[in-house]
């Protein structure tokens, strides 16, 4: 980053700090009841307390676990199913319209069905999170496979490449930008559904933590949890972007 960019960054942080100071001021003046709005000092104290002596670590781990298992299951299934559908024009003609119909459906509506089938359990959460997270990945995979440059398939035919080789050496790498973008979107979905399932089923995690804090009117703990959720969302998204960048280095070379 050049000097000007660094200066702007610093100024931007200063502005953010200003907002935090404003928040502190509002809290100190009790313009909003401290039951609803704790000052940043109390939220921070709660964060520190939660990590050092409380069980915020296990709550964080709980949410991350839910996210991770659901997202991984969704990735494997989504890429596999998406590859099968995307690589065959017949399948695309018959299946794609149904998928387009299902796409705008709020995935959280599957939750009651999952509860009916599996009760208020971890299994229910895993099912819901996987189900929700599979859509961006599967749709992106189908699109990526459908968009493979036809000339490359002709090259593959000319080289008499096996079907497996065509999928692994040509179709998958060609579709990888789309697939990785889909996986990044799925992370967001996985986080949201983890929180919802934790709230509904009382499963161990940050969602449950913030709900309990709200019920007990412990606003500092509540805000600490919300901030932590935001940080989780941010860090996982950035981690995914970095991975994308590394894996798609050849795309960067085009610029």
């Amino acid at each position: 980053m050049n000097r000007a960019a660094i200066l702007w960054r610093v100024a931007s942080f200063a502005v953010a700090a200003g907002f935090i100071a404003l928040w502190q001021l509002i809290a100190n003046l009790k313009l909003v009841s401290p039951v609803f709005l704790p000052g940043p000092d109390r939220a921070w104290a709660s964060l520190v307390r939660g990590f050092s002596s409380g069980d915020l670590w296990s709550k964080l781990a709980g949410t991350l676990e839910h996210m991770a298992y659901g997202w991984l299951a969704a990735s494997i299934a989504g890429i596999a199913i998406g590859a099968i559908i995307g690589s065959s024009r017949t399948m695309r003609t018959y299946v794609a319209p149904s998928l387009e119909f299902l796409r705008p459906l709020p995935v959280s509506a599957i939750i009651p069905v999952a509860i009916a089938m599996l009760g208020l359990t971890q299994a229910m959460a895993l099912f819901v999170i996987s189900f929700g997270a599979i859509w961006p990945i599967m749709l992106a995979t189908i699109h990526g496979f459908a968009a493979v440059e036809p000339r490359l398939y002709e090259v593959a035919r000319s080289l008499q490449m096996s079907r497996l080789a065509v999928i692994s050496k040509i179709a998958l790498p060609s579709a990888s930008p789309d697939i990785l973008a889909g996986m990044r979107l799925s992370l967001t979905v996985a986080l949201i559904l983890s929180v919802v399932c934790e709230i509904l089923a009382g499963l161990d995690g940050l969602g449950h933590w913030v709900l309990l804090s709200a019920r007990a009117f412990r606003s500092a703990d509540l805000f600490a949890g919300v901030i932590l959720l935001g940080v989780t969302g941010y860090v996982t998204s950035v981690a995914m972007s970095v991975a994308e960048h590394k894996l798609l280095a050849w795309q960067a070379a085009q610029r």
Partner: protein
Amino acid sequence: MTANSAKALVLPLAVLVAFEAWARATYLQSDSLAPPSEIVMALFGAFADFSILTATRDTLFAAFAGLAIGTVIGLALGIAFGISDTLNRLMEVTVEAIRPIPSIALLPIALIALGFGYRMEIVIVAFACVWPVLILSRAAVRSIEPRLMEVARALRLPPAQRVWKIIIPAALPRIFVAFRLSAGIALIVAVTVEIAINPLGLGAGIMLAQQALRPDLMLAYLVWIGAIGYALNVLLIVAQNRLFGRAAMSGGGQ
């Protein structure tokens, strides 16, 4: 009916018929599944006693109210950040810090502040809608033909008029695309809040059906929610094509 749209129906019809046949053959007794015929009956029943219509009205009200508020705020900020690069850069850290917070995480805060009901749901939907509108309208403003901005300056238009007469009309096609995306998000978030905790609307309806061990009614709600989502999407795409035609294509008319 074209060959392609006929093919599109093959899979869903086959699934429905197979499901119906299997349920009948096994005399299905389940808390979670019901044959399509019973689902349709439950749907008609819910229409007949207006329960599903009331729920639809409540959900759509909350979703649209939140969408409206979120769009207005997102648009105002997006235009401001799009016009003023200084403002945009200064606010970058703040925006990037708040944006990743999942809207559903605000649910407990809204709950203790506002209690159950419309207001808390509207607030959460609004929060979720602000970000896509902000980001996309900011991009739309930035991509306005510079020549137009020069014209505005040459005509010595006051800032308010510059926004109203030049910037908004020029960026409108892409702003509408942002609005369309946010409408989908609004519906999803509204239903999610209702399923998680709020005792009103379609989300509450489907949860109540599940708790009452009425899988036919529960799946009827599920189908109806899907239909609403689909219809909303189609409606907005038609509106987009009508209003903007080719102008909106560059913004991604899908």
